[in-house]
């Protein structure tokens, strides 16, 4: 299968109040054309920053090193203008923070219509018709009444669904969605899930960042697990959920309410990134002498790998 979007040795480091945060710290990942890849992992492990870096959308106070390629083009070497064109039409982003992502002084309909107008259709009345369809699609009903509403009058779930509508409005090839089910209830989650599934059937490549494991399970082809700026495990969905390999990934499953809500003890420290050992070591119950040296991402088979000495 062809790779559509990939990162090699990607580092994104932030500088803030005299500190360095290595948000993404050596990520290698290949996203295959038309696959759905779910990225799961700890809060703060760098999932959103990875997503943003894949789109060349990072803030000014960071340094980026490595390669990000979309169909062979290194995005990190493009000008802002060249990037803009690719972003609007080929790669789209659905952000994590629905409230902050919407312009409070513009109607929801106008905001959803913007990418359609820019990249797909210049006739305003056709644009409006497409926006109404999108609103219906994401179950913001009745669309005729909601299209001219301002974001403040929407609940969190409605805002999130509007953002998905906005993301897909420009008909992208790759959609990166950051927490698309965040804060929405089970019924709405079904409609977002159905929506993404429909996009997937159209052949759109999906990168879905999520904390919702059952959502990831129902939707994805592969699962990537991030911890402390690195990919710790990447596997086919079924084999992952039948038995995650990395000790962190196992801990995640044990933290689910249905498995007893057992948090992983300890917490991530920025300093764990500097001692050269496995980054999960201070929290890992399997740690051995060898873990003082960080394991590489060990390939198990094509498209499947784990970063842990237990599998060497």
């Amino acid at each position: 299968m062809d790779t559509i979007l990939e990162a090699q040795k990607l580092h994104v480091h932030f500088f803030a109040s005299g500190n360095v945060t290595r948000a993404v710290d050596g990520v290698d990942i290949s996203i295959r054309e038309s696959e759905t890849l779910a990225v799961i992992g700890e809060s703060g492990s760098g999932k959103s920053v990875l997503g943003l870096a894949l789109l060349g959308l990072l803030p000014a106070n960071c340094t980026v090193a490595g390669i990000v390629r979309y169909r062979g083009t290194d995005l990190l070497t493009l000008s802002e203008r060249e990037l803009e064109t690719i972003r609007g039409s080929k790669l789209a982003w659905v952000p994590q923070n629905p409230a902050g992502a919407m312009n409070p002084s513009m109607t929801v309909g106008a905001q959803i219509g913007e990418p359609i107008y820019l990249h797909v259709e210049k006739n305003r009345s056709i644009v409006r018709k497409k926006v109404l369809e999108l609103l219906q699609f994401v179950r913001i009903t009745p669309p005729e009444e909601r299209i001219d509403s301002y974001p403040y009058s929407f609940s969190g779930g409605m805002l999130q669904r509007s953002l998905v509508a906005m993301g897909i409005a420009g008909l992208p090839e790759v959609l990166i969605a950051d927490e698309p089910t965040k804060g929405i209830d089970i019924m709405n989650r079904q409609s977002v899930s159905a929506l993404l599934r429909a996009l997937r059937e159209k052949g759109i490549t999906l990168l879905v960042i999520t904390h919702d494991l059952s959502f990831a399970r129902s939707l994805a082809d592969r699962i990537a697990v991030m911890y402390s700026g690195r990919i710790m495990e990447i596997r086919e969905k079924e084999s992952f959920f039948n038995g995650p390999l990395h000790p962190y990934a196992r801990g995640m499953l044990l933290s689910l309410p249905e498995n007893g809500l057992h948090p992983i003890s300890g917490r991530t420290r920025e300093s764990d990134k500097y001692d050269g050992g496995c980054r999960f070591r201070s929290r890992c119950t399997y740690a051995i002498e060898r873990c003082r040296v960080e394991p590489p991402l060990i390939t198990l088979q094509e498209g499947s790998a784990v970063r842990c000495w237990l599998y060497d």
Partner: protein
Amino acid sequence: MIEGRGLTKIFNPPGKNRIIAVDGVDIQINTGETLALVGESGCGKSTLSRLLLLLIPPTSGEVFFEGQNLTGLNEKKLRLIRRKIQIVHQQPESALNPRWKVADSICEPFRIHPDALPHGRQVGEELEKLLGLVGLEPEQASRYPHQLSGGELQRAVIARAIALEPALIICDEPTSMLDVSTQAAIVRLLQSLQQKLGCALLFITHDQGLAHMIGDRTAIMFGGQVVEEGKGVLDRPLHPFTRRITSISDSCTLPLTEPQGVRPPGSCVYYQFCPKKTEKCLHNPEMREYKDRRMRCHKIPHA
């Protein structure tokens, strides 16, 4: 300890149909108890929590806190009460002042209520204690909100909420954006803080598994009303809406029920969706006691 009676909130957006966000809700939370509030997005959960704090005025209804009617109080007296009730919001991104360092936001309650600082203690000492309780590093607290991840932010918001040792913490989907392990840690954190401080929790969530784990009681909301409430409602759902949401499997494959026709004025809030509706349901059912719970549905035999 806190009680809402007949709480109703109607929004009248200019030029739009009015929205009945909360519709005649009676709700009661006892000292030290956890009430889980579950419902679809847009059903009025956040509005209800803001009504309990009188952050927005109710269209009708009253709120009592420790026996005192809050509805008529002036802003100054309300402020004194509000320090005993804290909210942890759905979106920590917008809960902290973006131009302040996180530590300054956490200490803000002590600036507003200087007398709340324990005798002889410095703000810095309290900050250190709070950061320790929620598991944040001092370095992280010296950053600005946009420089923290969601989980780190939510810990900061909780630190601020517990600064004044409140009697009630309203948690509005506090973990919906956290990874499962951090979620487990935050829920365990809230539970241990509840033990230490003896405070009550109103825990608003979409996650039935979580509601089940944390709630002493569960209230189910639909269309602005609490339709079922009690101890075992998620295990033994009786109301047609509760039955519906508890039967959805994790596979996300069940087709959605689309509303049938329009909701006749004055009918049951679930009328358009309900497979069990009869002519009786054209009249909105009252809240009634039935066995171990309270419910709004005509299908329930009179107790």
